[in-house]
């Protein structure tokens, strides 16, 4: 039985490869299923892994690329929060809460999503991307709670929410 195993895997891979010879179409088709087509397209097309994605792991790789985009954005936001802490000390209280929730995005939501995608249990990856929205809202709410002025990371927070929703849509295709 153990000898059969690699052979079966090979056969399955070969059969799936046949319909997947045009990756660009896969990227477009995938992005069409998400709520932000052009955002999705720009992220996937800028990552060489999209073009290498092959066979049965196509969508998984696209999901991983999108989760990576969420990761990069969360790092960008955390750096910005650190800058704001210095430039706007009066915002320290909400900034601290924002840092805490984006730390959760980076170290829990993204980490879980990557592990779950790699291991083939996309539902946990979906939960992680759903949570990004909740955490980003905590940060926004927290800032609105204390300050009337526009929060300088609101745009980034909108970005990460959109990225996580695109990631969620892609992940749902794997369920």
């Amino acid at each position, binding site marked *: *039985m153990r000898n*059969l*195993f690699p052979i*079966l*895997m090979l*056969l*399955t891979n070969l059969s799936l490869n046949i319909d997947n010879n045009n990756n660009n179409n896969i990227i477009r088709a995938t992005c069409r299923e998400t709520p932000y087509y052009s955002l999705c397209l720009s992220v996937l097309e800028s990552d060489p892994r999209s073009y290498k994605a092959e066979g*049965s792991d196509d969508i998984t790789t696209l999901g991983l690329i999108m989760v990576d985009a969420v*990761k990069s954005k969360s*790092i960008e936001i*955390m*750096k910005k929060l*650190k800058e704001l802490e210095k430039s706007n000390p009066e915002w*320290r*209280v909400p900034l*601290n*809460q924002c*840092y*805490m*929730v984006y*730390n*959760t995005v*980076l*170290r*829990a*939501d*993204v*980490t*879980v999503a990557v*592990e*779950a995608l*790699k*291991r*083939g*249990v*996309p*539902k*946990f990856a979906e*939960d*992680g991307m*759903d*949570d990004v*929205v*909740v*955490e*980003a*809202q*905590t*940060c*926004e*709410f*927290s800032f*609105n*709670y*204390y300050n009337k002025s526009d929060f300088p990371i609101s745009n980034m927070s909108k970005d990460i*929410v959109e990225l996580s*929703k695109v990631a*969620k849509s892609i992940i749902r295709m794997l*369920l």
Partner: protein
Amino acid sequence: MQNQKKKMSIPNSETNNGVPYTHLPESDNDSGNTPARCRKTNRSTFIILTGLVAFLLFFVAVKYGNNDGTDDIIPGPVPPHETVCNMIGSNLMPLTTMRTVARGVEEGVSAKSHGHFLGVRPFPWTQKMLAWQRTSFHFQPKKNWMNDPNGPLYYKGWYHLFYQYNPEAAVWGNIVWGHAVSRDLIHWQHLPVAMVADQWYDINGVWTGSATFLPNGDLIMLYTGSTNESIQVQNLAYPADPSDPLLRKWIKYEGNPVLIPPPGIGLKDFRDPTTAWTTPEGKWRITIGSKINKTGISLVYDTIDFKKFELLKGMLHGVPGTGMWECVDFYPVSKIAENGLDTSENGPAVKHVLKSSLDDDRNDYYALGTYNAGAGKWVPDNPIIDVGIGLRYDYGNFYASKSFYDQEKKRRVLWAWIKETDSEAADICRGWASLQPIPRTIQYDKKTGSNLITWPVAEVDNLRSNNNEFNKVVVKPGSIVPLEVGSATQLDIMAEFEVDQNMLKKVDGSNATYDCIKSGGSGERGALGPFGLLVLTDNSLSEQTPIYFYIAKDLTGNFNTFFCNDLTRSSEASDVRKLIYGSTVPVLQGEKLSLRTLVDHSIVESFAQNGRTAITSRVYPTKAIYENAKIYLFNNATDISVTATIKIWQMNSANIKSN
């Protein structure tokens, strides 16, 4: 004594209809913003001072705990909860009724999967609030993450529960088999992890499995492993020492894996083997959930020794559009006897239940049907309510369930994974995630003939103390009645509601359709509902968790009864999902409406009509906790009074022990 209690407890019920209850449907964009803003200004000095102190503390913690640069923004393992809690341990948010503009509500994920974020306080959690959320008589690990129940069984005087467990964090990952034992399904003792990911065929996870007893009393376990290439395979394990009633050590069969995904099945769509049952030829048979495109299916295998398996042609059953079937369960129920049936039983007085956990929507669906042992096929009694499109065990938060036959008490017992519905930041801070429900017995509903009955195992009644009874309390339209029971965070509540039959006849029918989930919740008033209980509710009613009936009468005079649980006002915290759960519940001629609710801190389990419909929810109040958690009766119907008779017990803690 009970009469006296009644008078003391219900001061307003007869005199002035209690507190008017019409403010429940209060809209989110009402004028409440104006006074709230004033209050905020008045408090701003306090906030700034508190904030400064908090920041100083935080600054010290961060300064000496971490580098100040951006080097530390590198994704790594989930942070230990102390780190996160240091950041939020200083409760920065003052208690207030301020309502912020709920920005982001519309852009939230679809209401169906997510619900609304109507909270007003961003991440308000103090350690005291989070500590309150831990349950007292439900099973949960000491800390960290749990998901599916695995291989439940009864062996040499002990109930065993294995479960998907992450020993390292309060989020999913690093899955091994946690293990606990109990004499009575209620008082548990934690044991060391039973199986870890240490072989190429399960190195990426020791996933869900089921136990089977062989006729000689031997025990085997089949479980899914995620291989070094993340391929899903089935593996065999057995107790290292069958004479150990605690089954602490498990041996994995050296010939693992015993099953790999068959041709045509995705390498990651092949998991969660069932308990085996016997075939007419004397072989063993199991089923494993999968999918083909979007059709959820259940594959069938026969075996003699659990090492070599033969795939049957076709499948046990499949339902188009239901997606991947996880944690399939398949078992007989008796149409005549009260007791449960061992998985291999069959015969004319038996129906077979097929259950699937749908990966697509994360709910557990079942259907009653007929099993053809010769062909290895099952057909539903009613294709309209087939698996995945009809009935559910529970219309709330309840997934990845697994049943087992308890040979000691001759009953079938159900476990499940009750997940968190707050933010992962809160879970990490709290240090744990997920619960098991109180195990439920499963029976065929002989009265309706169309559904199962699930009910908390009788042993939970042994935790009851301090009975309070409230007899024939009249709750008039638009009123609310407090029930004085002392602390209301650990309760078992049995309530019956009588509705004036003449009024039911008099009320005009309506062509409006009702649906718990799409309705306006407990605040949407109809002629004949909603009415029921408010649990985990504070004195000001700013946090409340209504559990209620809603009777709908159509134009032809037919009644349809709904059983719902509205979480939209269950917490002021912004990072909590607040759904409305519920479904219809069959009510037969002459039956009173009855409900039972178990409240145990952050879990509320409710059963209507003795278990025909169940709803489990997770609740995370910020005010209605400890001594401020209260219970009320309410009636938001416009045309009928209801008469309620209620028994409420305080529930003792089950004191889960560690080994």
